[in-house]
Each structure stands twice: as C-alpha cells, then as structure tokens.
C-alpha cells in the first residue's frame, strides 16, 4: 500500500499522560483530508507527533514510503512535510518579511524563495502592507495569515493546517477557503484540522472524527452522510 502519509496505530502523549490512543489514518497523493472533533482530544497532538515535536510511544508513521517515526523535525521538514501550528505566536521580535524569508530555510525551499513570497503576498495582501511590523504586534488574524504564509514558504509536499480559520473574519475565511482550494489543486495534499465543519467539508475528500485520542469515525465523500449527519455526530457526542 503506497499511501503518501500512513499512520498506523500511533500512541503518544505528554510525560505521563497519554493523549493519542492508537490512531491510524492515511492520505493519498493529491488528496485532502480533514480532522475534526471536540477540543482537547488530541488533534494538535497528532500533528505534533507527525512533525516529530512529540515522540510517539508506539506505532509507525511513514511519509512518501519512508518510515519517519522518531525522525528529527528538521529531516521531516526537509522531506516537505510541513505544519502550520495552531494559534501560533511565531517570532515575536521579527518583522513580517524577515519571518517569511527565514521560513524558506530548508535547502529545497530556499531556491524559489522569492516566487513563494510573491504567492504569499497575493494570498494575504495584508502581510504586504505590514511587511516591516514585528510579529508580536500583529492582530490575531494577521498572525494567522503569517503562520500559514510561513508554512507555504517551506515548499510543502504535504501541508498540515491546524485550525487555519482561527480568528479570521468571515470574508477572509472565504478567501482562505479559495486559497486552500488553489493549494490543493496545485497538487499539494492537505491535512486540515478545523472546527468549522462547513469550511472543512467544502475542501476535504475525507473527514476523520477524533475523540479521546482515537479515530471514532471516518467519513468518505463516497458514503458521505451529508452535512446534517456530521452535525448530528457532533452534537450527539457533546454530552460526554
């Protein structure tokens, strides 16, 4: 089975606390999957584990055929597996442009740094306007844009967005949806963690519902239960 990203029975956590209890999921080239589910149930933790920020205690993660379980984060990034983390504060004292330029750090990313910057600016003109402002003084939404911008600067071969619409205005959400759509079309596969299910369903081919560090339900476009179904799933579980 040649999934681009293949996660088999991964468990992980913080110190003595286990958060992920045997998660398995996969993603094929050109695909876009979405993770949703109640807060605090391990979605971000999962992404952290994939990026190597947290070591999995068991299970295997493989990307593009190679096993990256327990690989060092820089390796993982160099291989093009990029994450835009949740509610990111980035580098407080660095200016917007500096940050973007720096983000193209891996050798792969560095060569088409300039063109990527242009892309990002097109996507978020606001960042252009604020180019010399320090990150820590950006507004919540602007920070979110910068964070996603950085991820794009890393020349991703697989992009993981953790709650990308967090704190974005409705209008920007739409624009972001379009943008992400473009990214997907450009052939970059996506893993999106998101609370806004409409947003998610408008983009993802498959959805995973994450609860208590497990995948409790996989929803495929094929056997799509439709929007209301998902909603019910959602409201259904909220009395736990």
């Amino acid at each position: 089975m040649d999934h681009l990203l293949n996660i088999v029975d991964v468990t992980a956590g913080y110190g003595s606390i286990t958060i992920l209890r045997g998660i398995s999921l996969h993603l094929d080239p050109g695909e876009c999957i979405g993770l949703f589910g109640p807060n605090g149930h391990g979605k971000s933790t999962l992404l952290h584990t994939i990026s190597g920020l947290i070591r999995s205690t068991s299970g295997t993660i493989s990307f593009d055929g190679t096993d990256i379980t327990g690989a060092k984060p820089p390796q993982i990034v160099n291989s093009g597996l990029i994450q835009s983390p949740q509610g990111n504060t980035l580098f407080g004292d660095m200016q917007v442009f500096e940050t973007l330029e720096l983000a193209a750090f891996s050798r792969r990313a560095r060569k088409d740094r300039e063109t990527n910057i242009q892309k990002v600016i097109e996507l978020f003109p606001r960042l252009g306007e604020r180019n010399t402002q320090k990150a820590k003084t950006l507004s919540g939404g602007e920070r979110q844009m910068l964070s996603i911008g950085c991820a794009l600067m890393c020349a991703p071969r697989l992009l993981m967005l953790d709650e990308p619409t967090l704190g974005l205005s409705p209008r920007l959400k739409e624009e972001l949806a379009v943008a992400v759509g473009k990214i997907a079309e450009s052939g970059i596969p996506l893993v999106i963690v998101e609370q806004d299910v409409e947003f998610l369903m408008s983009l993802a081919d498959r959805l995973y519902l994450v609860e208590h560090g497990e995948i409790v339900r996989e929803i495929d476009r094929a056997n799509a239960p439709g929007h209301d179904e998902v909603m019910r799933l959602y409201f259904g579980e909220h009395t736990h």
Partner: protein
Amino acid sequence: MSNPILQTIGSCKTFGGLKAVNNVSFSVDQGEIFGIAGPNGSGKSTLFNLMTGIPYGPTSGEVRFQGNRIDKWPAHRIARAGLCRTFQKDAEYPELTADETLQISAVYNGRRGGREAMRQSARVLELVGFAAKRRQMRSHELSVYEKKQLMIASALVSRPAVLMLDEPASGLTKPEIAKLDNLLIDVNKSGVTILLIEHVLSLLLSVSQRLVVLNYGEILAEGEPGDVVKDEAVIEAYLGGRG
C-alpha cells in the same frame, strides 16, 4: 431610556504612522450585549486595550465608565472598578490550578475572604462548564478550550459590571459555541453588560443587541445587528459573499 455605562469619546490609538484606532466614539448601555465586529486588524482588540489600559491607554480621546474618566487610570484600578476583559491569545497562569486562578481574581476584586472566594470559584467554574476533575490541574496542562473557559470564569468571579470578551468562540466546536451562547445570555440576565468581539457570526448575531463594525480603525457601521449585516459596506469589507 439609555443610560450609558461605558463610553469612548473620540478615542485614538496610533502606532508610529499607523492609526490602529482612529477617533472612535460609541456608548454601551447598562445591561446590553454590545457586539464589535470588523475585518482582521481593524482595531477591535486595540479598542479593548485602550479601554482597559492593558497594556496601554488611548493616544487621545476619553474613556468613561460609570460616569468617571478612566483613560488615565492604572489597569488594575480599571479592572477592580468592574471593567473585566479576556484576551484573544489564550492567557493563563501556568503554575496555578483553576481553583487558585479564580481564587486570586475573587480576592483581588471582591476582596472577599479565602473561603468565600473558594465557594464563588466553584460556582463559576460550574457555570462555564469547566470539568470538575480538571480543577486541580496546573493551567499549562489544560487544553485550549479549557484555558478559554478558565479565562472567562476568572473574569466572572471578579463580579464585573462590564464583561469584555475578545473572540471567545474562536477555535470552539459548534456544541461549545452553543454552550457559550447560553452562558452569555445567562450572565447578561444576571445584570452584567457584555462587550463581545467575535468573528463567529452565528454567535455574534444571535446574542448581541447592538453591533458596531470597525474598519481600518474607524466605525464603518453601527446599529441593530439585523440591519448592519445588510449594509453594503459591511458586506464588502467584512462579511464577503456569504453575507
């Protein structure tokens, strides 16, 4: 019949060349839920900052609260006077448990004795639906959502006259937003005026009785939520196609 509890009069905040908030005037009536919307970077949080003096007051203009000019007051005094805010970035006291977090808020506002403070905390935590079994955990171990709950709780426990919430719903699931919706209504019923910055329209529109929309630091529209969302300029600048 309007008796403004909180007013800004020509408030401005500039950062170098940038006018983050530019001559904004509005007044909030006792007991209402007052919504603030606007594109990213339009100055909403800055508005909160200059009203609460955290971390800075206005560059110019007045802020009046219960009839007093407070724009020169130190932040903690404003807070004690009953103007209580939450932050957009989740803030926490990493080493304190939920109980302790609330306890100090209670003591430093109501100046109530320790035991009374504890009782209050328990009540409020329950009100915001904070899982009882997590109350003894240090804040840095809590999830994003729990941190948000805690921040709101710590505001409530200090008996605010005006509760100022900066994007409380961001990152919440539908069910959680629904709960938040109820919570705000309850709190408001108990006589607390609420200022609400929110991008989650469902919540914003359902709870707020009045709404201003900021754009580039200036008021773009103000009035009944229903009307405001129909405003062309607002749709153009903020809502976008979906409306």
